[in-house]
């Protein structure tokens, strides 16, 4: 970039706090088949070219798979298999014979399969992502362009993309990736969750960022969601000052979570694997508030045996010693289908047979998991608490509680993600020992807004007063029954919302371990009475922005440094 480069500011949604300055690396968007492509005249020759390119794509994916992590490898291998599929080549040949241009033929043939698989749902719909990835790579090669995706980062950089797919983020590390900016996505999108797990500052919904040239110096503030292009020395100085103030505010705190006047609010970690458990256990957290057990099941052709599950759970429980571990039983369904327990396509998977609903149908899967959890509990004597996802009714809660208790597991709880369960939490808590609010799904269902759809981000702001009202209802039920209610959604990791949640009566907050220090500091700066006043002020707001600004006005000024 030249010295007279444009100096501008972008605003998006900050989804992972922290600041960074570095050169911008744009994730190459996938090229489209040109509208004015020349028709194919020699179908046989074109067919040969396409087959050669598909083989190159397959070989490239295989080479990346060989170096990829355990999580990324099956995704890349599935892509290679699609690229070599004889049916794909035959479909493309048909298009070439009808005279379509070469990249158009690839695009149309892939879309025909995609349309068919999307209508089938479940496992088939997942293959659509692999197929479109193969299409993008093949079309780029046919046009003589580099394959799309994250380039190899040679120096510490800030990554910008329209959106990042799981396969693309799987290879990122904190050494070379200083920050992440995307044009779409929301606070609970894959990118947001991954960035906060890795502690990389991130901003989503930064519309227009892709127009900034490769290599331009940018400054990112993942707390407030601001991006400065070609920052002045004064601006980078202010950012450094903010970074220093944030570090100072976070320094020194390692104790249990509590308000200034000593009301305890347990600070817990969200984990998904035994590796996460080992890392989180080294942090000053009071245990695990959400162990997502899906990772043991997804990508598996057959159900993991009770022995294998027992070994993994034992490893996780041992890592935490006498600290609590809240385990969520398998939360899968039509959008995260299990290869060995697929119930077939559904029109509306988010409202379909997922969570406990699937568990009640495929009881052998749930029972095997509970048996393994009970065995790991007996082997370790850990403070294990087992909860079910997606509980909506008392009948589901009693069904689950009976099964868990029959195996001698000490504590049983439910996830409150369905508004019905929050509204009637008193009745549900009568049957179990605790509840944990999954605020991401609870908000999606309260607002009737798909949490994966970035355009709906305004409806999915966790400061939304309607969500706070639903949380308050759930907490009232908990207080009436004398049972603890925690939060394990992304809202728990927001230092301002954590105060509101504490004020509403939430007794534990579970989050990505990297977010714990800011929440601990925020709680320690305010009394329980102040938290209750902030909760009332937030609920009095007419929208999310008003709710947040009311709380920020009442809070200690240091709170602003924590974002």
């Amino acid at each position, binding site marked *: 970039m030249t010295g007279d480069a444009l100096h501008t500011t972008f605003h998006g949604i900050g989804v992972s706090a922290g600041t960074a300055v570095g050169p911008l690396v744009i994730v190459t968007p996938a090229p489209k088949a040109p509208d004015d492509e020349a028709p194919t005249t020699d179908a046989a020759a074109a067919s040969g070219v396409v087959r050669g390119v598909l083989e190159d794509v397959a070989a490239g994916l295989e080479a990346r798979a060989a170096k990829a992590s355990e999580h990324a490898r099956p995704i890349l291998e599935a892509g290679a*298999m*699609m690229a070599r*599929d*004889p*049916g*794909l080549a*035959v*479909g493309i040949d048909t298009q070439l014979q009808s005279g379509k241009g070469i990249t158009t033929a690839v695009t149309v043939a892939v879309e025909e*399969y995609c349309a*068919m*698989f999307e209508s*089938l749902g*479940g*496992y*088939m719909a997942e*293959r659509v992502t692999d*197929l479109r990835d193969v299409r993008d790579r093949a079309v780029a090669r046919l046009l003589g362009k580099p394959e799309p995706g994250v380039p190899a980062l040679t120096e510490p950089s800030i990554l910008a993309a329209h959106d990042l797919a799981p396969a693309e983020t799987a290879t990122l590390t904190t050494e070379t990736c200083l920050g992440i900016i995307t044009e779409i996505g929301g606070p609970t999108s894959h990118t947001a969750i991954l960035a906060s797990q890795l502690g990389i500052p991130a901003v989503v919904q930064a519309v227009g960022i892709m127009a900034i040239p490769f290599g331009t110096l940018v400054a990112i503030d993942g707390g407030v969601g601001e991006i400065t292009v070609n920052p002045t020395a004064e601006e980078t100085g202010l950012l450094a000052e903010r970074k220093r103030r944030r570090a100072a505010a976070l320094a020194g705190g390692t104790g249990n979570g509590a308000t200034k006047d000593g009301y305890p609010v347990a600070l817990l970690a969200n984990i998904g694997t035994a590796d996460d458990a080992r890392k989180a256990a080294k942090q000053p957290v009071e245990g695990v508030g959400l162990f997502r057990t899906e990772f043991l099941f997804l990508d598996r*052709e*057959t159900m993991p045996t009770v022995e294998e599950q027992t070994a993994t759970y034992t490893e996780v429980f041992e890592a935490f010693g006498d600290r609590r571990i809240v385990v969520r039983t398998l939360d899968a369904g039509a959008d995260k289908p299990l*290869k*060995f327990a*697929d119930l*077939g396509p559904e029109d509306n998977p988010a409202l379909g047979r997922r969570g406990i609903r699937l568990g009640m149908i495929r009881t052998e899967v749930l029972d095997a998991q509970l048996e393994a959890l009970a065995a790991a509990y007996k082997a370790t004597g850990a403070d294990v608490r087992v909860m079910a996802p997606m509980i909506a009714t008392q009948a589901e809660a009693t069904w689950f509680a009976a099964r868990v208790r029959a195996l001698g597991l000490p504590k049983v709880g439910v996830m409150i993600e369905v508004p019905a369960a929050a509204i009637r939490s008193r009745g549900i808590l009568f049957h179990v020992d605790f509840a944990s609010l999954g605020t991401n799904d609870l908000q999606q269902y309260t607002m009737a807004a798909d949490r994966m759809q970035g355009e709906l981000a305004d409806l999915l702001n966790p400061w939304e007063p309607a969500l706070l009202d639903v949380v308050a209802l759930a907490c009232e039920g908990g207080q009436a029954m004398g049972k603890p209610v925690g939060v394990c959604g992304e809202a728990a990791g927001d230092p301002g919302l954590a105060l509101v949640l504490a004020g509403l009566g939430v007794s534990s907050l579970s989050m990505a371990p990297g977010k714990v220090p800011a929440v601990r500091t925020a709680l320690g700066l305010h009394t329980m009475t102040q938290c209750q006043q902030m909760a009332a002020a937030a609920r009095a707001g007419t929208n999310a922005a008003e709710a947040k600004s009311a709380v920020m006005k009442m809070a200690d000024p240091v709170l602003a440094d924590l974002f």
Partner: protein
Amino acid sequence: MATRQVSIASSVGLHARPASLFVQAATATGLPVTIAKEGGNPVDARSILMVMALGAKNGETVTLSAEGDGAEEALDSLVALLSRDLDAE
């Protein structure tokens, strides 16, 4: 040309994992094996895309065909595979 008819035993039909196992087995024969539903056009049994798109359901009869050395034995082994409930295994 060798042909065989077999009813799909897999409870989810020829879908997902069962389809993947069948395609792997068909590819391993090294022969150009095809699969067709009753009254339908035969498709390449070595293509996971085409086999999944076929959408053969539990209890539906499919026709397998192959040519070349060992075609009879190859089809017998594929028939045996489709006669098992692959999803339950």
